């Protein structure tokens, strides 16, 4: 394992004599900032200390202390370890200044924290619910909120053994009792205020038309059932003719409160649930979660297991990018020929996953301190065959097939532009950030596992348009193949698990944030443990979700037909966006 870079010890006492103190709870790190100093502090971090990237914003409900805590993770785009800072407010008066003006990337994440935890961000220009619907009662991630099929606070449930007489939850909860409405709420008479608020927030655009022609703006909804959204996703846009004036994504149709489920689960039970976030790259999800919990448990991973982890994570990237390119071409109108070419190769990678983990997509392969099982016989030969022979040839073929195509180029070159500054401001991650010319890749910037041993380049492209977001994925596949080639050559024999496999792990109290460079960008898991068998707080920094923050601004001024192309180039998976 790479020695983790020490968290920087910065001295804020001279710059902030008041209002910023170090977090001294055992197992915790970072700084606690007064709510009224927050904006000043965040601005200073960005402008004076170089922490220009706000990666994650989330909340924790410390119900026993009557306190809500907002947790911020900041990074430098030149690399290095991160910095955590927190704001603590009373539970019944949860108001925190919004960081929207300093980091617009906080936009969706603050809305999420409002939606799920009930933290009000004052000064946020559009603080509406984002994952749940406007008529929803309460804020589900608060510890005292209970779902309709509530059975107990934590698993395992007592009703399963030794007197486990089978029943279904819905048999115990009457029809209609499985939805709770706020007081005075009549679903029959409800007018969706949220829709008005949504359209209202779109209408803020000011007309600068000087031609003297009287024109109207119209609002158009794309989705939620739209073939190009690869799931259930809606875009509400105001148009002037065909040109997008303003646009907002609407999501949450696939929301299941993954985080609440996660807090009911034991640590191990969460592992297969992470598969279902970005279901195209379950190995990476496993990886991030395992890292976060291993950090808390302070355990090492054996050499061989590290190599297998890297192999699996890179194969995941290869197949994810192939699929992303294929589906992106579908969105552009190249109906299914490129995507089926891509899927052929992906199938071969999935064959390996199936052989190794038992499942093609829901791999559930990582364990704390190692892996579920060793590679079966023949797996390495298969990986070798793909990494050395087939895939390099096929990536070149893909390149030849598509990259010079004039139609593709004219639809993508120069369109959907995102500048490097904006990419950072909007907390874009992964290929999206790198296609805008920011060479930030966690495998290099803050290496985890054994990535510091491999020779590879961080793929960067400079133009920040749709075409670069396409071509960078081809670059990344090539670099991943290089890593795989080195890893299969170097992989040692040995154990694949530290200690005995356990179904009930002991996790000391504290917090940790494990992040990996997933195929879609920075995938982070923030875990708070109180020493019990279940995580006290479990949060996922989902790249598919946060990358959408820049989607609206990127589309301004484009024709409506190009929205689909821009969305395809971001590469989202709704399982992760909506969680």
């Amino acid at each position, binding site marked *: 394992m790479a020695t983790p870079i020490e968290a920087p010890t910065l001295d804020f006492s001279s710059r902030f004599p008041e209002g910023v103190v170090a977090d001294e709870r055992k197992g915790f790190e970072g700084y606690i900032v007064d709510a009224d100093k927050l904006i000043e502090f965040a601005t200073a971090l960005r402008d004076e200390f170089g922490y220009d990237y706000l990666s994650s914003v989330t909340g924790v409900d410390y119900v026993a202390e009557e306190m809500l805590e907002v947790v911020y993770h900041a990074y430098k785009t030149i690399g290095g370890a991160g910095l955590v800072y927190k704001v603590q407010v009373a539970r019944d008066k949860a108001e925190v200044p919004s960081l929207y003006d300093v980091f617009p990337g906080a936009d969706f994440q603050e809305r999420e924290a409002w939606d799920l935890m009930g933290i009000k961000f004052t000064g946020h220009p559009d603080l509406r619910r984002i994952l749940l619907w406007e008529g929803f009662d309460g804020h589900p991630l608060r510890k005292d909120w209970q779902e309709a099929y509530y059975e107990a606070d934590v*698993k*395992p*449930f007592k*009703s*399963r*053994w*030794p*007197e*486990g*007489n*089978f029943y*279904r939850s819905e048999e115990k909860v009457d029809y209609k009792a499985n939805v709770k409405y706020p007081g005075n709420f009549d679903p029959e008479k409800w007018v969706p205020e949220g829709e008005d608020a949504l359209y209202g927030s779109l209408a803020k655009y000011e007309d600068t038309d000087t031609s003297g022609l009287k024109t109207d703006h119209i609002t158009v909804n794309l989705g939620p059932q739209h073939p190009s959204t690869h799931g259930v996703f809606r875009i509400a846009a105001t148009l002037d003719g065909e040109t997008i004036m303003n646009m907002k994504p609407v999501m949450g149709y696939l929301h299941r409160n993954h985080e609440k489920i996660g807090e009911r*689960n*034991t640590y*191990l*039970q*969460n*592992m*297969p*649930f992470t598969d279902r976030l970005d279901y195209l790259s379950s190995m990476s999800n496993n990886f991030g979660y395992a890292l976060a919990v291993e950090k808390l448990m302070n355990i090492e991973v054996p050499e061989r297991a590290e190599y297998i982890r890297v192999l699996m994570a890179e194969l995941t990237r290869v197949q994810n990018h192939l699929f992303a390119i294929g589906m992106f071409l579908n969105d552009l109108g190249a109906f299914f*020929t490129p995507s089926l*070419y891509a899927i*052929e190769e992906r*199938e*071969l990678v999935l*064959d390996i996953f*199936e*052989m*190794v*983990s*038992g*499942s093609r997509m*829901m791999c*559930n392969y990582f364990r704390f301190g190692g892996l*579920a*099982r060793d590679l*079966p016989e023949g797996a390495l030969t*298969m990986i070798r*065959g*793909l990494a050395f*022979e*087939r895939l390099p040839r096929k990536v070149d*073929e893909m390149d*030849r*097939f*598509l*990259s*010079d*195509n*004039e*139609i*593709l*180029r004219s639809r993508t070159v120069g369109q959907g532009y995102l500048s490097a500054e904006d990419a950072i401001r909007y907390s874009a991650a992964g290929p999206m950030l790198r296609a805008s010319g920011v060479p930030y890749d966690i495998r290099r910037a803050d290496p985890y596992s054994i990535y510091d041993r491999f020779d590879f380049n961080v793929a960067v492209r400079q133009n920040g348009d749709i075409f670069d977001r396409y071509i960078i994925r081809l670059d990344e596949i090539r670099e991943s193949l290089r890593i795989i080639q080195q890893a299969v050559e170097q992989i040692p024999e040995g154990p694949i698990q530290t200690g005995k*496999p356990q*179904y009930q792990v002991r996790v000391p109290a504290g917090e940790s944030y494990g992040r990996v460079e997933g195929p879609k960008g920075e995938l982070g898991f923030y875990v708070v443990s109180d020493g019990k068998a279940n995580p006290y707080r479990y949060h996922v920094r989902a790249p598919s979700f946060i990358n959408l923050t820049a989607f609206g601004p990127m589309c301004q001024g484009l024709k409506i037909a190009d929205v689909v192309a821009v969305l395809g180039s971001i590469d989202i998976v709704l399982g992760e966006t909506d969680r």
Partner: protein
Amino acid sequence: MYGKGILKGLGVTLKRFVNTYVDDLKWLGKRYYTAEGLAHRSSKDASGIFTVQYPEEKLPVPEEFRFIPFLVYDETEEGNEIRCTSCGICAKVCPPQCIWIVRTSDPKTGRPVPAPADFTIDADICMNCGLCSEYCPFDAIKMDHDYEIASYGRTVYGLEDLMKPASYYAEIRPINNSIEEAARKAKEEAKAAKAAARAAKAAQ
């Protein structure tokens, strides 16, 4: 020249189109509906048509493939002996909590007997994660290979439906089975050796 890129791309498609026939000719009738043909179509050397003609053709599943657990019983001279001791570990580890077990207790003493009185798995809830079989200390619950269980109704398995013989397990997971059998044998031998040593000591 405008259009050169498109032509280049079309060249790739054309090559693939021709390759399909070339590959078909090379295999001459053996490419489809034969095990070798199927293996070729899902290998790194595959070219041409990838498609598998399901359900006439089925891809063989690898040993580790997992789908809905079943309970293993041993066929002995005295009859079928279920391996499960109703220890409850699988019910505790199951992430969506879809296993229900009723423990048997001795009607006279009330003490627990190591066999389940009832065992239910709600297959509609099961997420096929395989954790139950991974952490069962008695190799009593294993993941199946049979994935064709789609139905119009709900699928809930009781004890009877879940039971499958150890020979079936050995057939679908030969490598795992032989490792486990060897471990069990070693354990039994160690136990027997210990007992023999104790007996020898007592005889002295």
